[in-house]
């Protein structure tokens, strides 16, 4: 009887028993982080916009997560947790694989097909496989793991394809509202607004893009006694010459603009940085490394954060394009001082609410849930851009700093930041609840 009981449970366990008797090498949390890191550099190259980057992170992580969930009892399936999560078909006879290896490979395979320059990911995947051989994975295990990974990846990609993003090309292109107080293109490149229909794609945990509609923005007014005009004056006064050096450093630290255009006559160049989502995935990597989280847990945390980023962007973008609010730069130049320039280059989308405030708070809530609320760490994600590392006493503190930095950077009004934090909390808590198995909030 006992023997039978042992044979019935998780096929992963069974599969592991049927592997070669030699001890399997183990992958660490850094192998997960490295995939994310490669994705980030490819997305920088492609100039992937922030919401879309989150979408790529989310589906990529999900592919790794699905493999882990099928093999590690501690990690529960997303079926019934995420919206319309499919019934994943498992490969018929799959033995001899290493599930950690499969999880990482599934992430490579998925991102290779999602990202425009995804073929670069295949190059990284090759190098990764070589390093696996070096640490003792034999070819059969690798092949078997890859085959399993591909099967899962394909289904996750189908899940992604059905989210409505590919239908966005059908919608009429964005038109300016042309009313006072409505968003207008911003200098220097006057780029067309990014992802005006991001709210039409299927969220992962939200019941709709409008689940957490924030309070209305302070109404636009040029009346010098109005609250909005005071906002203009605040931004005008602060993010100009009144910034302390540390505030400037913080604003630059959280700039996260994938494409700031610099103008030198006929020569234009796009200066690149990681997106806000990529920044927080980077923090996740730092935190997991520091906390020495196990492989499965790392995949889980990364997935939860990525889901939070995606859903955060979906509801934030819904608000941006519903309110179409003017940016500080446009309003200040029009009504106060035509020469004013914010410290940071205004990104090309409407103002309300602040994306960085939302997703940073969401990520912080999720990371706090998994790693604790007094988790001290040093964030060196921006070092490659000549920006020195910063120390944080908690994820929450970092998120708060990211949020206020948008005001100092001169690209947001305070209500967009405050309400962004509120929404970020709600999204974060929803993701945590879903991931923890609670179906209701």
């Amino acid at each position, binding site marked *: 009887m006992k023997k039978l009981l042992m044979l019935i449970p998780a096929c992963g366990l069974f599969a592991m028993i049927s592997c070669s008797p030699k001890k399997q090498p183990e992958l660490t949390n850094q192998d997960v982080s490295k995939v994310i890191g490669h994705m980030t550099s490819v997305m*920088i*190259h*492609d*100039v992937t916009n922030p919401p879309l980057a989150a979408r790529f992170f989310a589906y990529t992580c999900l592919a790794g997560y699905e493999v882990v969930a099928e093999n590690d009892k501690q990690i529960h399936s997303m079926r019934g947790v995420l919206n319309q999560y499919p019934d994943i078909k498992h490969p018929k006879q799959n033995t001899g694989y290493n599930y950690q290896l499969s999880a990482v490979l599934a992430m490579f395979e998925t991102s290779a*097909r999602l*990202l*425009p*320059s*995804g*073929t670069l990911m295949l190059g990284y995947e090759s190098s990764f496989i070589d390093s696996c051989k070096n640490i003792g994975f034999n070819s059969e295990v690798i092949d078997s793991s890859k085959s399993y990974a591909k099967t899962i990846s394909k289904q996750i990609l189908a899940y992604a394809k059905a989210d409505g*993003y*590919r*239908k*966005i*090309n*059908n919608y*009429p*292109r*964005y*038109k*300016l509202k*042309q009313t006072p107080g409505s968003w*207008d*293109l911003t*200098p*220097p*490149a*006057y*780029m*067309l607004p990014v992802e005006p229909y991001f709210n039409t794609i299927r969220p992962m945990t939200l019941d709709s893009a409008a689940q957490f509609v924030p309070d209305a923005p302070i109404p636009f007014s040029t009346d010098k006694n109005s609250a909005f005009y005071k906002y203009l004056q605040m931004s005008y006064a602060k993010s100009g010459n009144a910034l302390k050096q540390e505030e400037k450093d913080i604003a630059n630290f959280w700039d996260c603009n994938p*494409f700031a*255009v610099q*103008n*030198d*006559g*006929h*020569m*234009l*160049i*796009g*200066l*690149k*940085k990681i997106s806000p989502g990529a920044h927080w995935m980077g923090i996740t990597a730092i935190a997991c490394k520091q906390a020495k989280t196990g492989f499965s847990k790392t995949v889980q945390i990364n997935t939860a954060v990525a889901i939070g980023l995606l859903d955060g962007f979906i509801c934030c973008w819904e608000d941006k394009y519903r309110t179409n609010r003017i940016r500080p730069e*446009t309003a200040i*130049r*029009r*009504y106060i001082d*035509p*020469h004013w*320039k914010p410290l940071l280059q205004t990104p090309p989308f409407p103002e309300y609410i602040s994306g960085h405030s939302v997703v940073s708070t969401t990520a912080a809530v999720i990371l706090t849930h998994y790693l604790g609320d007094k988790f001290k760490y040093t964030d060196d994600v921006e070092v*490659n*851009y*000549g*920006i020195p590392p910063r120390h944080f006493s908690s994820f929450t503190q970092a998120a708060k700093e990211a949020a206020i930095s948008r005001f100092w950077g001169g690209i947001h009004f305070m209500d967009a930041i405050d309400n962004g934090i509120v929404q970020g909390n709600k999204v974060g808590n929803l993701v945590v609840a879903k991931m923890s198995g609670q179906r209701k909030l």
Partner: protein
Amino acid sequence: MLMLFAGCNHEPSANSQQPLFKLLQPEQTHVEFANTLTEGLNTNVLMYEYFYNGGGVAVGDLNGDGLQDLYFTGNMTDNKLYLNQGNMQFKDITADAGVAGRPGPWKTGVTMADVNGDGKLDIYICYSGKVRAGKRVNQLFINQGNNAAGVPMFKDQTADFGLDFPSFSTQAYFFDYDRDGDLDLLLINHNPGRISIMDDAFVKEMSAKRDNESGIRLLRNDNNHFTDVTVGAGIINTPLSYGLAAGIADINGDGWPDIYVSNDYSIPDRLYINNGKGSFADELQKQIGHSSFYSMGNDVADINNDGKPDIYTLDMLPEDNKRQKLLFGIDNYEAFDLNLRVGFYYQYMRNMLQINNGNNSFSEIGQLAGISNTDWSWSPLFADYDNDGWKDLFVSNGYTRDYTNMDFLKFMGDNLKDRRVMRQDLLDIVSQMPSSQMKSYLFKNNGNTTFTNTSEQWGITMPSNSNGAAYADLDNDGDLDLVVNNINQPAFVYENQAAKQNDNHYLSIKLNGNGANTQGVGAKVSIYSGNKTQYLEQMPNRGYQSTVSAVLHFGLGKDKQVDSLRITWQSGKSQVLQKIKVDKQLVLNEKDATAASPAQKQINPIFKEVPAPIAGSESDNTTNDFKRQPLMVNSISFSGSILTKGDANGDGLEDIYTGAHDGKAGVLYLQQKDGKFISKAVPAFEADKNSTDAAALFFDANGDGKPDLYVASGGYADYKPDDVLLQDRLYLNDGKGNFNKTNNALPKMISSKSCVKAADINGDGFPDLFVGGRVIPGQYPEAPESYILINDGKGHFTNETAKYNPALKNIGMVTDAAWVDMNGDKKPDLVLAGEWMPITVFENSGTKLTDATTKYFDKKYAGWWNCLQVSDINHDGHPDVIAGNIGLNTQCKASDAEPAEMFYKDFDDNGSVDPMLCFYIQHKSYPFVSRDELLDQMSVMRGRFPDYKSYADATIDKIFTAEEMKDVKKLTANELATACFISNAQGKLKQAVLPLQAQYSPVFTITSFDYDHDGKEDLLLCGNINKARIRFGKYDANYGVLLKGDGRGNYQYINQQQSGFSIRGDVRSVLPLNNVLLFALDKGKLKAYKQ
């Protein structure tokens, strides 16, 4: 050798394969100057945005020996003056002459002019660059006369003349703006930094500031001392200034010199018209429809020999597909509108040729002329290089570093992460970029406002980065040689072989002006031979940063004599000479000109604008069709009315119906006995105001003798494909002009229509209808439904399309139709025209309509047809056809061998059709869509083309897999010209040639009438498309093209001054009524003209 000096040679070339221009080697000419740039930490394009703009070259006879000398400016390297020794030999006399200028950066343009009026040519050198003010004071070198060795000596007298101030100058121009006999100075300056922020508030503020170093300045010469008169003269002087060239000429023929200023970047060009009272007004936005975006050099010259100077500006549009694809992102309509809002007007990136209509309007036809795409170009020079009597064109071009490339913009940032060392990193990248060289262009004037690219045949074979250029007869052999200033390469000296190669004649003219204007700047010379005329104006400072020869040059073709010549000096004094011998230099002295200048010819226009007899329903519609389907070829929505007439109330006077549009109801205007019109309220029309009326027809639908009104609903805008507002309406008339809609008179016809034409198709005595479908809103270019409606005699119509010919149901995007008896069997046949459709003829048997096109046309004429007229033009009993098309003034060209093609399918299977326009560029077919536009249309493409380079050479079969191309639908066009077909005795239609002006702009209306009452049909063609996609640019060159017919299918263009038509805007409907022509324009405006 002797022959060269003798000047002419009548022997035709023994070897006609020899190119027209021969590039001479520096070893031979001793012109070793090269504009060498040394890039470093402080001297690079990041420090000074115009680092690669090049230098200039001036040509003039400095020592009075009859030979033209050369002065080159080097941006960083030393300037050089070469004395012409004859035989194309030159000697460097810079040091001896004392005219090197200050060494080091940064020299720009060079001008030669007799500034102090002493008969000797002086030299003025411009400075700029990111250097301190002291290094940017321009220099005026006054010619002191020759030394004992015959070398002209110069003295820097800048301060004496009041010109010692710093500026960022491009070029200086000396001309007599106030006609007081001395030369004033126009200084074209530029801002050394790029101002990228161009929003309303900023532009407004900057526009109110003065900037004497960056802004353009006008300085008046008062006894050899220059005084700034910029502001009083109305010259705009602000920091928003990127002046690269000025074209000075008497553009409007009133005797006063005007100025065209080319401004780089988004700053608009200026057309300064001299008011004769000391000041100028910028009339560019009144007279010109659109200009170059990055206007570089320009040239003002009469290129079509009609005696009126035309204007040509250069820009940066490449000729080849690959470079275009590397350059373009996505059409950004918002940024374009921002430019309009701040007053920067319509600007598009291509060379523009503005043909002077003589009535304060210009028609831009650079594309038709074949000179619109020459890549990053600097210096245009119109001159008769082959001496055939027509001015040809030289264009210098080149970009030293290819950083305009979108891959550079998007991907160079990969290497620039650490912002602390960015400047050095960026410099490293820039310096590693390959320096790409291009070949300059030579175009031969075909004599009909078009040019042929003869670069290779005429001797341009060396790639280079060429900027300033000048022409002059350096060897005095009767043809114009060319000198070109190159970056990092010796200058080019091209010797013109025309005098040796062909037997064309020439006449060159040296001017001796009175007073201080010794070179006769501003003098105008017209020559006449037979019925030919040519016109030149003396203004040596032209092109880009350069000065050409002050000796005027006419090529005469085979004419052995010039019948007469008139010169009108700037002072207004005039002289006429008769029977001038050719192949020599003629000297004209102003003191011999004693006659007054001829009065400007008073032309009595045939038509004059009159107030429109009815008010339009103006609308400010901002619909942009490209927001709905970004890949449509041309916009379809039109914010104006259609017009139709009929006697609605039976009082014998024709009434007018203006169609509904933009939420404004259709209106019935009843003509009164006094000729005025009064609108009559018709509730039924009000009820249908949200439909867009595409066509309307008064006809007796129900046989009660009263004209009813059929309105075909159309439009694009936001209509859904199945919108009930697309249903046509039949309003029955009670005879008094009371119209009521009958709801069941028509079958369901939910289709966006274009036309409705009546005929008794089945011969039963009742009028039937063909109604053409134009488009499925949101699903261009899928074929909409067209209809054959058969009348039961009582005003009830049945859809019998399938019965007559099922192919008619979705025949295509029909724009117009006509019922005409084509085969003489007394039954009305159906002729159709449409977008991407061949002109099609269906013969009517009474029960069937059969496609008989091949009986009438020798081949398929598929085009982007807009309108059709079928009538017997030559009264031979056979119908002839005139059809309006997009015309030939477009980027897209099509022919039998190289058709334009439209591939369409829902390639990415996401629910919307993807239209892919392809046409030939340099003999290969490429998709028109840019990479970003493709990715915006189909996100799946993002993985296929990760960068611009991977897309740059892609043909349609490289974009889509074979699997994806399965079941793709295809439309073709092989004829884009507006066309006239005259039927011969057998009834076969043969294409007749219309005057070129018919191709200036898309033709949407054809009005035939006999304006001169000579019994022969004349035509008025109107059209234009204001809301075009950005990369095509707005089509606005048609102001009302009047063609006088000879009754046999030949037409003569009546120019705008003579016809009187000056219609600005889009015309979609023209209604002749009571000797008045009523025009329906966009935005609901109406205009009227009367003879």
